[in-house]
Structures are given as C-alpha cells and as structure tokens.
C-alpha cells in the first residue's frame, strides 16, 4: 500500500517542493531569522483578498512564461531566452499601439498580434542555428536574449522616451490602447483570459494532435523520431516560434496593462521567465500541470515582497527556492533508479 502510494506521479513534484521549503527554512534559520514568520508572511501577502487581483495577474504571466519553457521542453530543448522574447513583445506592442494611430477597437488586437509575430520570429531563429550551424538552442537563446533586451532598452531611453521624465520609460499609452479590464479589477485583464486560452490550445495540440505527438516522440527519443521520418528541424522551428509568440503575448499584455507604458527593466525584474521555467520543469513539461505548478511560484513571487516587509527575510529567497526545487528535480533520477533496482531484487 505504502509502496503504491510512493509511486504516485505526484509524489516527486510534491516531495521536491516540501524538501525545498525545508531547505529554505534552514537557510532562513542560519540567517538568524524566523522561517515560520517568513512563510506565513508569504502566504498572507499573496493570498490576501485585497491582493488577489494582482496575484491572479502574476499567475497568468508565470503560466505564460511556463509555456514558453514547456513547449520546447516537450521535444527536449531548453529555451532560456524568455527575457529577450518577453521584452521584444512588450516594445513591439507599445510601438504598434502608440505610433500607428490605429483606431481604438483594433489597436489592442493588432498590438498583441504584432508582438506575437515579432517575438515568435525572433525565437524561431534559434532553430536553424541549431540544425544548420550546430549551435545548441540553449546557448543561442541565451546569447540572443541580452541583444533583444539591449535593443528595447535603447528604444525606450532614446527614440521612445517620455520627454522630461527622469525614468527610462515611454509616455502613457492612449486610452484606446489600454487592454480591457475585467469589471473594475485593476490588474486582472482580458489578457489573463488570453493566456488561459493559449494554455488550453497547447494542451489540446499536445495531447490530441499529430504535431503534439511528434513533438513528444522527438523529446523522448530523437533518433527514433528521425527514423520514423519526423523532421526535428521543422519541429524545433515550430516549437521555438510558438514559444516566442507566447512570450511576446505576455510582454504585450504587461505593457498594455496598468501602468500602460513600457518601463525599462519592468518586464524582467519580477523574474517571470525563470519562475515560468521552474514551473515548467516541476510540471515535467506536461501542459495540464503548468497552471498548477505556477501557483507555487506565484505565491513565492507575490509573497516575497511581504516576507521582506514583515519578516525581514530578503526577497531573493524566492530565487533560492526556485533553484533548489530544480536541483532536487534533476537529482530525483537517483531515487527512481534505486526504486527500479529494489524492484529487480525482490
């Protein structure tokens, strides 16, 4: 009975989280602070009813960036360039929404679509770099990302800068180009619904379509996939393109939401990209689990600020816990092997 329970697929991720939280507690204790206070502050800060609006919007962004990592992960590739893809989407959406003089009803959809196209195209470059030039996707995405971040930073500081402002930011977007809010909520917008829709699409494509199957076969065993006539190059192009498009969508939603402008660094500093990557790894790349694992990293992200305020534990603990969760997940194979070995003996 116990043996059967420990074999349940949820044991590994839940175990990893529990272990990470315990390790985090030890780190807090070593720093001479109180872990119970800290974790209580995290929960209070993120799940407070008055904060839920904001928490939900962050959950949406982390889910989105979770997909950005999860889609290529399905075929065994790592997209670590989420920051660049996110920022490029944000700046594209700003330019389309503010500079083209589009009428109200089309400004937002056009901005979103343009952001998805530009970021998708940008991310897709990594696929031919891998298949034609032999540069692993994990490397090219990482090298391309700071270039995109620098371009956006340049645009927002010079050509698009708000005149007379000391901050590196653009002027506020015209009223027409604000993404629609849900009721009178401040942070949760139609954007959240779009991200949920994208998650549903990914789930359906992954589990019900030929392309999704090919993606998973290639991830499980690339040589077998090639033997069966699958084209890893084209799959990589599609996977990276769609991952980039999702990142662009998230960036566009952030810029078109309150405070309705592109602020240099504001898309990257909350760490959505790596929270999303951690959520994707914790979900084992399974699309249906990403929204669940994203909850954990949302709580850490949003609660981190209040943990810092009330328990005086630095916010960076969130990054520490993300790193620890990922390392534990990687090391879990040891447990699997030991279990498999035990099975053979008996």
């Amino acid at each position, binding site marked *: 009975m116990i043996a059967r329970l420990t074999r349940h697929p949820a044991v590994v991720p839940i175990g990893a989280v529990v272990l990470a939280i315990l390790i985090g507690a030890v*780190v807090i204790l070593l*720093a*001479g*602070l109180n872990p119970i206070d800290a974790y209580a502050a995290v929960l209070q800060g993120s799940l407070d009813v008055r904060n839920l609006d904001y928490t939900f919007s962050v959950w949406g962004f982390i889910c989105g960036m979770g997909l950005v990592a999860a889609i290529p992960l399905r075929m*065994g*590739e*790592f997209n*670590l360039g989420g920051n660049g893809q996110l920022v490029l989407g944000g700046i594209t959406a700003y330019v389309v929404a503010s500079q083209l003089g589009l009428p109200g009803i089309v400004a937002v959809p056009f901005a979103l679509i343009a952001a998805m196209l530009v970021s998708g195209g940008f991310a897709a470059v990594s696929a031919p*770099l*891998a*298949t*034609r*030039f*032999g*540069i*692993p*996707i*994990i*490397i*090219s995405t*990482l*090298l*391309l990302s*700071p*270039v995109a*971040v*620098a*371009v956006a*930073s*340049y645009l927002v*500081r*010079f050509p698009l800068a708000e005149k007379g402002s000391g901050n590196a930011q653009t002027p506020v977007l015209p009223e027409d180009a604000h993404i629609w809010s849900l009721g009178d909520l401040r942070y949760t917008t139609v954007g959240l619904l779009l991200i949920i829709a994208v998650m549903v699409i990914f789930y359906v494509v992954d589990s019900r379509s030929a392309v999704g199957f090919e993606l998973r076969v290639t991830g499980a065993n*690339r040589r077998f996939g090639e033997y069966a006539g699958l084209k*890893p*190059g084209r799959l*990589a192009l599609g996977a990276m393109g769609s991952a980039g498009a999702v990142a662009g969508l998230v960036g566009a939603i952030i810029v078109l939401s309150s405070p309705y402008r592109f602020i240099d660094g504001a898309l990257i500093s909350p760490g959505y990209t790596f929270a999303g*990557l*951690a959520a994707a*790894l914790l979900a084992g790349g399974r699309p249906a689990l990403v929204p669940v694992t994203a909850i954990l990293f949302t709580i850490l992200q949003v609660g981190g600020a209040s943990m810092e305020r009330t328990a005086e534990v*630095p916010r*960076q*603990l*969130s*990054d*520490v*816990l*993300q*790193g*620890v*969760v*990922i*390392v*534990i*997940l*990687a*090391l*879990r*194979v*040891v447990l699997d*092997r030991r279990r498999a070995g035990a099975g053979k003996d008996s």
Partner: protein
Amino acid sequence: MSIFEWSFVAAVLTSATPILFAALAGALCAQAGVFNIALEGQMLWGAFAAVAGSYYTGNAWAGVLVAVLSTAIYSVILAVGAARWKADPIIIAIGTNLLSLGLTGFLLRVLFDTSGSFAPQGLNGIGTMPFLKGIPVIGDVFAGQSVLVPLAFVLIVAAGLWLRLTPGGLRLRGVGEHPDAAATLGIGVARYQTWVTILGGGLCGLAGAQLSLGNVTLFTENMTAGRGWIAVAAVILVANKAFWLPVACLGFGAAEALGFRLQGIGAPQQLTDAAPYAITLVVLVIMRVVVTRRRTHALTPKETLV
C-alpha cells in the same frame, strides 16, 4: 606603437581573463564528456565568495582561496549529480545557476545589509605587478594587471600539456571520447568526470575572484552578467581544443574592451552591452560555416554524458 594601443591590449586581457578561467573549466569538462553549463552560476558564486573572504580576513589572497575552495565545493552538486548519479547535467546547471543568483543576493542582504552592490571601504583587491614597469611591452600590458591574468595563460598551457603528454590526460580524453572503452581498460569513468568537474569548480572560483577582486574591487548582484555563457560558447567554438581557447576568449575580451572605448566616445551603452553576445553568436555561425562544412545536428547534446 603608442601607449594608447598597449593600454587597449591591457584592457582586452582584463576583460578576457575571467572568461578564460571559466572556459578552461568548461573545456576540461568537455574533454571528459561532461556538458558543463553551470559556469555562470559558479563564477558568480566565486565572485561573491572572493569579496566576502577578502572583507572578513582583510587579505585578498584569502579571498581568492575562499572563492576557489567554496566554488569547488559548490560544484560537487553538479559533479556528483551528473557524473556519478547520471542526472541531467543541463537541469542541474539551470538549478545551480538560479540558486547562486538567489543565494548571493540573499547573503548580500543578510551579511552586508545592502542590495545591488557591495564595495566597502578598505576592501583589498588582488595586487598588481608594478615591478614589471619599465620593461617595454610586457610592462605596458601586464604591470597594471592582477597576478591572476598571467596565471590564466599558464594554466591553459599546463592543461593543454597535461592533456597531451601525461597518462592522466590521455585517460581523461579517453573517458570523454569513448567511455565504454575507457571503462573496459579499468579507468573509473565516473571518478574522472567527478573530479574534473570539481576542478572546473575551482577554476570558476578563480574566474569569479578575478572578476570581483581583479578587474574591480566590489561585488554587484549578477555581476557575471552572462560571461559564463560566453565561456560555454567559447568551448563550443573551439570544439574542445584547449589550445585555441585563449584566441576565442581574447576575441570576446576585445569585443568588451572595444565597447568601453566606444562608450567613451559617446556610443550608447545598450549597443556596447549587447555587442559581446551578438559578436559571439556571429563568430559561432561563421566558424561553423567556414571550418566544418559537414552538416551537423546539434539540438541539445543529449549524449554528451554517457
């Protein structure tokens, strides 16, 4: 030759040295068949440990020692996890990179009660080599550098000779090239991979120390800013031939040093920030086109660690 140009050579060396140490670590691991992309996080940890060590002891060399030892210990996670337990080295590396970003930021707050950057008064950096002043060329280039700069080149040459001329080096290459054959000859494959990864950790500690106590005398959050990844790119670029590493790393050093110069004459900082990454990528592409005409599939090298 004017002084201006020699000072530029010196600036190239300064920029290249941290990358050189890290790239040497990555190249040695690659020789042994370990795909090590944890360089970025290890270098960042080394930079922090060096500053902390120097701050508490008042001695820069104690800081360097702390950096080397603690980074070697930190790399045990990757060494044992990937080489002995056969876990995915990429996922471990992503985790340890994030962990060291979080941990250095966390400790900066807890230990030194500051965030962003830490540059206390009286923090000792690694000494320069003023005794070289007056010697033509060598003095111009090296007198203002930390002792670790020539050490980087000495270590590269030593590593290259070790790999080519000694039984240990041969075994290491054998482990990377054909682990099964090596195992048949009674070589402990996992043991070699484990120790070379830990050695790489120590080298990344040196890389970090040079960055935080050699190039400057301070620590800032995420101060490695992608240098570890450029080192990984350098390893891929030279296809694991340690002797070519200095050329690649000096190229990246030149891109950075040139960036500083251009910034000095009014080029936007964003351009110069992005240049080393863009140049690295372009050079990678060109090298692949020119040098290897063979068609390669290099989606993530799954079989690197057999």
